[in-house]
């Protein structure tokens, strides 16, 4: 329905415009040769001038601009690459320095530790030696003391026993036989004392 109305309106308007147009003289102005020469002349003139000015003055400038921009961009990229490489090198150097310092610090620490340990060991050893010496000395002293005390005890025993015998019997007894008896007794006592 709507289509039909639109179509009718279009057809009607076509008739209207056609009648209006047919009132005037038709034809294509393009085929009227009156101004052909003028158009050709002006076309050659304007287009020729346009071509000459563009090719001589404007286009070289534009292409030059493009070239310089391209080369500048390339240059910038190159310098950026160079700088990046340099930075990487620097970073590597920095890392190396840090590593070296770490190793040095470790070494230093280790050597110092070793020194301290050695010192401690040495001191310990010398101390132990001293202690052993002291112990040996003390043991010797003890031994000597033991021996001397026994002798003294036997001497005292002999003297007291001889004194006792003198007082009891009133006469001197052979000292050697007395000492033999005392020694025999003390030996027995010692054996008993030492648990043998």
């Amino acid at each position: 329905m709507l289509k039909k109305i639109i179509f009718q309106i279009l057809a009607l308007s076509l008739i209207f415009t056609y009648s209006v147009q047919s009132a005037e003289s038709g034809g294509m102005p393009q085929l009227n040769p009156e101004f052909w020469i003028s158009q050709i002349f002006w076309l050659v003139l304007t287009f020729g001038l346009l071509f000459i000015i563009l090719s001589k003055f404007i286009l070289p400038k534009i292409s030059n601009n493009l070239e310089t921009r391209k080369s500048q961009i390339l240059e910038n990229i190159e310098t950026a690459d160079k700088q990046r490489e340099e930075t990487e090198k620097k970073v590597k150097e920095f890392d190396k320095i840090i590593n070296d310092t770490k190793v040095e610090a470790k070494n230093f620490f280790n050597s110092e530790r070793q020194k301290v340990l050695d010192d401690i060991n040495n001191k310990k050893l010398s101390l132990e030696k001293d202690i052993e010496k002291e112990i040996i000395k003390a043991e010797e002293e003890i031994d000597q003391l033991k021996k001397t005390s026994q002798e003294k005890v036997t001497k005292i025993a002999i003297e007291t026993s001889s004194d006792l015998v003198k007082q009891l019997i009133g006469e001197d007894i052979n000292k050697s036989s007395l000492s033999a008896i005392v020694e025999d007794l003390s030996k027995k006592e010692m054996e008993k004392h030492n648990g043998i």
Partner: protein
Amino acid sequence: MAANPMYQFNVYRIGPEIKINNIDISFTNASLFMVISSLAILIIFNLGTKRSIIPNKIQLLAELSYSFISKMISDTAGSKAKPYFSFIFSLFMFVLFCNMFGMIPYSFTVTSHIIVTFVLAAFIFIGVTIIGFIKHGLGYLKLFVPSGVPMVLLPLIVVIEIISYLSRPISLSVRLFANMMAGHTMMKVFGGFVVSLGIVGGWLPLGFSVALTGLEILVAFLQAYVFAILTCIYLNDALNLHH
């Protein structure tokens, strides 16, 4: 105002009549729009030649169109066509600006006249033929003898090739002229519908008119592009003889 859709193509004299040796070369509305288009191209592209690393808008436009046409030429005609760059650039810009100025209401479309497009096409045709003969001598005639064609068919093919070669300026000029004329006539006709149907029925042709304007702007660009790219193809035939 005349309702005749062909009225817009009328050429009329502006200013005094100029005659040299009885030949009329008066300044007309067609001449006016040629001058306006050329000046517009020169102004825009001259503004685009500033030397700055980061381009402004006009410079970007100029540089983009430069690289666009440069790429078009190297794609279709190869690197040998570089010396003809500025000619093809001017040609494309001239046709494009004439087409686009024709889209302004009540203006005049230079390229809607067969004589203008024919002069351009004939110039291209003659130039390309001369370039072909300079580059290849009489060997350029091999263009009409495609390789790999059976001997029986050869006379026929040669005739067809010659006709197609000779019809190049006509097809090139008529394509542009007919496109521009048809588009502008159609817009005028639809504009006439809007007036004659009035406020009741005029809306539909008005919508058409708006849509057609968009289409015509596309056609204006496309025809300029086609004109330039066909020139490149003809130039390619003349520079790189493949047959």
